[in-house]
């Protein structure tokens, strides 16, 4: 959804109906329209995930929530990535993409990332666990088991690039081969008003 220059916002009004508002000459097509669901989830417009070089789908969207931490104001954003760690191997790294900010550090304040594995040869169905060591993964046997190695999202700087360039990776490793699907869903905050640019890897 395109973001108009106006700050005016409506909630729950059909965007196809133009309304005349007191002290405003704008019609709805020039406003940002939120659905109730979008407002409650904090999503600012639609999330579009692009396709990257490792077939990962990833994107960053701005959230409606702002933060004031001890007098310092921050905007919030959401990073999403959907990918599969396949074929099975002991070590997987997926470059998600880079988050470049105009100035300041980025702080990840929330991580709702999920790992899905198949358990057709075990108790049946699929397993879903938070991304971490201990998350259930599978292999050719199609029996899910907990990963005992490492599983995390890596925020890293590139040695020759400025600190404002944050490369994001999915990192997972275990003593035995494994595979799984990964759904990255993380919120981060940046200095209020600074630019945020995402480049898919």
């Amino acid at each position: 959804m395109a973001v108009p220059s106006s700050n005016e916002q409506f909630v729950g009004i059909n965007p196809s109906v133009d309304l005349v508002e007191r002290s405003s000459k704008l019609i709805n097509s020039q406003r940002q329209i939120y659905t109730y669901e979008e407002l409650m989830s904090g999503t600012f417009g639609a999330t579009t995930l692009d396709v990257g070089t490792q077939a990962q789908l990833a994107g960053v969207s701005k959230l409606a929530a702002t933060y004031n931490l001890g007098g310092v104001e921050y905007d919030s954003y959401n990073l999403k990535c959907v990918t599969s760690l396949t074929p099975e191997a002991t070590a997987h790294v997926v470059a998600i993409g880079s988050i470049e900010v105009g100035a300041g550090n980025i702080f990840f304040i929330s991580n709702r990332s999920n790992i899905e594995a198949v358990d057709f040869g075990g108790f049946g169905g699929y397993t879903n666990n938070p991304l971490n060591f201990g998350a259930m993964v599978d292999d050719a046997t199609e029996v899910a088991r907990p990963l005992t190695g490492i599983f995390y999202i890596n925020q890293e700087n590139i040695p020759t690039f400025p600190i404002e360039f944050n490369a994001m990776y999915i990192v997972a490793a275990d003593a035995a081969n494994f595979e799984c699907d990964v759904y990255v869903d993380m919120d981060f905050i940046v200095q209020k008003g600074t630019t945020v640019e995402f480049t898919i890897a």
Partner: protein
Amino acid sequence: MEETLIKVTDVKGTVLKPIDATFKVEYKYEGEAAPEEVLVGDVKKGEVKGDDFPAPDATKDLEYSEIVIDVKDKPKNLPYASKTLKFIGKVPPKGVPTDLPFTGKMPKTKEEKKLAMAEKKEALIKELQKIYPPKES
């Protein structure tokens, strides 16, 4: 209570948390030939913490104080230059940002960024495979 005495930042004010650097604080008194080192150590997570900068010798006149940030020249270190900050007639203010100049290469194209991320990815997977060797399926 410990406070941030020195905030090691770039010129945009971003804290250089992963920087590998040392610091020293020196006081130069009127009539003395060389400055006196009053505080020295490693920069940890982009900051130098402490209760306060040492009080200058009350029996002498402080000509200036200096903060010297010495960035270690290593291939994996962040590309920022060492810097000296001088404060005439006073001790440094608490929490002073260092504004280290950038010495690296600003990525200009998406391809350049993608290539850098891909190289890093390959390096990371090689490191992981040292600990978790590949196995036949």
